[in-house]
């Protein structure tokens, strides 16, 4: 057997996380831990109204309060802005793209919109003074729902457009209407995705330190995107990028909510520039619920055409998407991340989707774990169950007959994209076996027969998703204004230690561990000798940051390539020193060995030392051993899997309990199984949360009712079952590591598995529809309505 080029010592192993000793002993440094001499505190005054004209802002009383240094209205700060806050994804040519100023000047467009800023010596003083800022609001009728927003005569969120419609983005392939007209079976359903509040455990926080004499600014921010923030905020503030450094220290979770460039970042920069003093702002939890972007918020009219047997012929879907009051960084583009997945892992002849973005007087929406793909997956997987009911087949059977056959090379799909690799049927089979599908069906039949109070339901979700954002040219075709590459630099120190600079910016995922595993195997360096630096634009100049499950399949692959470059140069030096031709060397056991004479060898640390002394380098070769690679992926990656959920429903109260949950995932090659498992567990929990618990509920005035963790029902371990996880890996054909990504899979897969199970439990009563979250009351109502609306 030929020796493998790379000894796989770390990749695939359950190495403990490097990050944890520091974090678990309270030594991690978060933005709120940063204290700078002379620092002042900012508090943002927010509109209590969802929609109101701002007639005047009187700051005089607040300005005279103890410790207050300055109070600014939107008008006061207007001259600070070289441009509005960034919006990087104008999805259509004719999109209505309103300017979004960090502090509102004329109108408040959601409850929580910033209307003034108070700066004081202490946070408490700023908070007290904020209550004394007198804003003369003229309350306007708000638009709260997307359908109401599109009605004639609806109040306008942005008057200048004459409509609340933001854009319509269509994608069509094949003779859709023709196929539907002729199809023997057409199933049409309407699905609603609640608005969700991302709830990173660390709220946002910002510290800006100016160096007035140099015109320089350093910003620490609890952000997922220091590199993107640097580019965009330099434009908003008119600060030269060369004089602006952004640092994301330890960041306590994001789930997409910190994939954003926020008003408060711009405000802190502006105030620091005005006052010439460091400024700090730390979000309160209740403020987080209002002012940090929300996720989801979509209504889907989903249709499939099929044969009598249940073979899919086509997909046709129309979506209304809640943008909220403004367009944030990528608000309009979020649904597009799912736009190509409305046929799931199935084949179909034709495909058409259309998204209409709509302004409402609510907190802006943007990326939330899964971003567009949970929405798509939910529609597909729900309608597959509806189709199964319609053609009288088991839901597993209908899926099986529609799966794309197994493949390991790029394969075209109904939406026009090419998937990378997959074996969907085998994955489903594994999940069915693990869950004990036939047994569950028997148990279900028995409980129906005995009219048990607790009815049993089983739900499937055979999802496909899309990550590895993204081939830059594809992004261009979707009108996204940035690229999708990421960078890695590997610096081999003369002492044998290695520093890696990564453009990905972790906020809890364990990049330092996974990246070290990749480098350790690639270069034969001990795991503990590798240091990973990230999240500081002065240290890692090039980066596109972390979101959309992109890190391993873009940033991680960049590291792989950078390591290959290091080896390329190292091989030259080793060959020179060993006085053999490069071809006579093989890299094995972490060393360049002379073929046939393995004791003649040079390790990377030895080469690094030679490269540093430069005493004896090949002719023309530069000293030093440091290489950079910027990886622009040729395709997306397409993780997939089969999740099966079993629920028990108390039919007297409507309460659902998840009693069994099986997840079989194909996230490509696994770097660290423990980290992957953690991602899936957390993701599934968050998906169950959407299915059964969480929703941002507003009243008719546009006031958020679920305004704290007491009423916004994030489930805890007590509400979740023990998950059974398994894998069915097909290495991605998109990149040399074979990795796909796993950060969002659970959240994408779980909601339809759970809701399908709930409906399955009640289908014998005639229940066919329950919106998320399937709260006890909703389930109870569905049972009552199906039973003929008794009581």
């Amino acid at each position: 057997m030929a020796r493998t080029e790379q000894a796989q010592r770390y990749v695939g192993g359950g190495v403990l996380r490097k990050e944890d000793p520091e974090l678990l002993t309270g030594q991690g440094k978060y933005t709120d831990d940063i204290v700078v001499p002379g620092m002042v505190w900012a508090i943002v005054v927010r509109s209590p109204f969802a929609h109101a004209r701002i007639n005047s802002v009187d700051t005089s009383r607040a300005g005279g309060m103890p410790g207050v240094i300055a109070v600014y209205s939107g008008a006061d700060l207007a001259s600070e802005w070289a441009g509005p806050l960034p919006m990087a994804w104008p999805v259509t040519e004719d999109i209505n793209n309103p300017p979004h100023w960090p502090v509102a000047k004329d109108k408040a467009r959601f409850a929580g919109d910033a209307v003034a800023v108070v700066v004081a010596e202490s946070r408490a003083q700023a908070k007290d003074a904020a209550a004394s800022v007198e804003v003369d609001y003229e309350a306007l009728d708000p638009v709260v729902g997307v359908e109401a927003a599109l009605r004639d005569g609806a109040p306008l969120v942005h008057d200048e457009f004459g409509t609340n419609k933001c854009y319509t983005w269509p994608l069509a392939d094949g003779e859709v209407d023709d196929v539907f007209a002729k199809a023997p079976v057409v199933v049409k359903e309407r699905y609603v995705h609640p608005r969700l509040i991302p709830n990173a455990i660390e709220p946002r926080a910002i510290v800006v330190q100016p160096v007035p004499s140099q015109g320089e600014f350093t910003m620490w921010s609890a952000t997922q995107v220091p590199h993107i923030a640097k580019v965009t905020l330099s434009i908003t503030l008119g600060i030269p990028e060369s004089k602006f450094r952004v640092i994301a220290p330890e960041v306590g979770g994001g789930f997409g909510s910190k994939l954003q460039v926020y008003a408060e970042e711009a405000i802190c920069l502006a105030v620091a520039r005005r006052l010439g003093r460091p400024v700090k702002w730390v979000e309160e939890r209740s403020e987080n619920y209002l002012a940090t972007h929300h996720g989801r918020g979509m209504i889907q009219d989903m249709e499939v055409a099929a044969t009598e047997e249940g073979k899919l012929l086509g997909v046709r879907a129309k979506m209304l998407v809640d943008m909220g009051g403004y367009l944030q960084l990528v608000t309009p583009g979020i649904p597009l991340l799912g736009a190509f997945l409305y046929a799931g892992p199935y084949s179909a002849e034709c495909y058409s989707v259309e998204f209409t973005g709509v302004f409402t007087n609510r907190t802006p929406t943007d990326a939330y774990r899964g971003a567009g793909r949970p929405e798509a997956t939910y529609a597909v997987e729900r309608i597959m169950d509806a189709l199964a009911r319609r053609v009288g087949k088991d839901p597993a059977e209908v899926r099986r007959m529609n799966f794309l056959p197994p493949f390991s090379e790029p394969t075209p799909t109904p939406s026009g994209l090419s998937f990378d690799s997959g074996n969907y049927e085998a994955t489903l089979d594994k999940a069915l076996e693990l869950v004990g599908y036939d047994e569950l069906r028997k148990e279900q039949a028995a409980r129906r027969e005995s009219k048990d109070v607790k009815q049993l339901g089983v739900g499937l979700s055979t999802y496909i998703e899309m990550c590895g954002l993204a081939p830059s040219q594809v992004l261009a075709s979707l009108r996204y204004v940035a690229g999708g590459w990421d960078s890695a630099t590997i610096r081999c120190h003369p002492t044998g230690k290695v520093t890696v600079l990564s453009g990905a910016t972790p906020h809890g995922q364990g990049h330092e561990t996974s990246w070290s595993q990749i480098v350790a195997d690639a270069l034969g360096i001990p795991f503990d000798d590798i240091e990973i630096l990230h999240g500081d634009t002065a240290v890692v100049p090039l980066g596109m940051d972390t979101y959309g499950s992109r890190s391993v399949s873009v940033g991680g692959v960049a590291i792989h390539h950078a390591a290959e470059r290091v080896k390329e140069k190292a091989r030259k030096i080793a060959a020179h020193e060993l006085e053999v031709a490069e071809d006579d060397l093989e890299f094995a056991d972490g060393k360049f060995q002379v073929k046939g004479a393995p004791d003649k060898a040079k390790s990377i640390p030895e080469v690094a030392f030679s490269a540093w002394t430069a005493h004896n380098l090949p002719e023309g070769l530069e000293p030093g051993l440091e290489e950079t690679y910027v990886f622009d992926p040729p395709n997306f990656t397409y993780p997939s899997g089969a999740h099966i959920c079993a629920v028990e429903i108390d039919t007297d109260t409507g309460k659902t309990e998840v009693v069994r949950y099986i997840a079989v995932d194909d996230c490509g090659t696994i770097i660290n199984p423990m980290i992957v498992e953690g991602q899936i567990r957390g993701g599934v929990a968050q998906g169950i949360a959407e299915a059964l618990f969480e929703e941002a509920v507003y009243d008719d005035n546009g006031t958020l009712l679920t305004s704290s963790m007491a009423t916004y029902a994030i489930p805890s371990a007590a509400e979740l079952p023990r998950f059974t996880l398994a894998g069915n890996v097909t290495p991605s054909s998109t990149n040399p590591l074979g990795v796909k990504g796993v950060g969002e899979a659970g959240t994408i897969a779980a909601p339809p598995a759970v809701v399908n199970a709930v409906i399955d439990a009640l289908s014998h009563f005639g229940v066919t529809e329950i919106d998320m979250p399937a709260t006890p009351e909703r389930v109870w109502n569905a049972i009552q309505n199906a039973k003929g609306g008794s009581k």
Partner: protein
Amino acid sequence: MIPEPFEYEVAESADHALELLGRFGTDAKLLAGGHSLLPLMKLRLALPPALVDIGRLSDLSYIRDNGDAIAVGALTCHEDLQFSDVLKQHCPIVSHAAGEIGDPQVRHRGTIGGAVSHGDPAADLASVLLTLDAEFVIHSTSGDRVVPAADFFKDLFEVDISTQEMLTEIRIPKLQGAGWSYQKFHARAQDWAVVGVAAVVNRSNGSIDAAVGLTTMGDTPLRARAVEEALSSGADVATASQEADRDTNPPDDHMGSAGYRRELSKVLTRRALEESLSR
């Protein structure tokens, strides 16, 4: 997250607390475990100018067997109620209900005195104590007075304690072998009750002698008198339970519509009675 400025004094004894209340005036508040008061202050929904901290009065944290009743000091925390052998033996419904409150952190800080004094109709212990016909000992500079539970809960967030008084003890009659149950319905383990039903049941030759209390079914904790009467006049459990929402006024909000809460109260009453009878 940051309350308005307020004055703060630590009481050394119950009488010292009353003295401080007298000094600060009528808007001052006693601070026990702080788990109802402080969240309201942090949201600036409660703005007391002064707090008198009684949280350190350990002599008011006790559970004693007084013969017919168990005497519980007002500063006893939920965790102590949950694991008290005396209560588990003589008033297991109180231990059980205390264990259903919030999460372990809440149960370590929150006190039985705070739970009932706050006057929240969602407080689990309030409806349980009402069901048990407990008595409340109210202390003031003019001495102690004893208020039966039936008279204690006046209105939403209003109980029979004046601004210059303090609750010091709760006297809970022993169950004497009666069957009991507390059915708390909530979406998450740490949530407040959407509806809760407490039952204490004795069988007396043929009919059922029951006390049934309701959590979150009106402005105060309530007794389901119609259920109790139906049972004593011989109705079966299923039939009597249908009366659970009689004379109630449940909240109607996104945590549960009034209609849903009414139906839940019937289901939970039936379950509470069935469980009580099986004990």
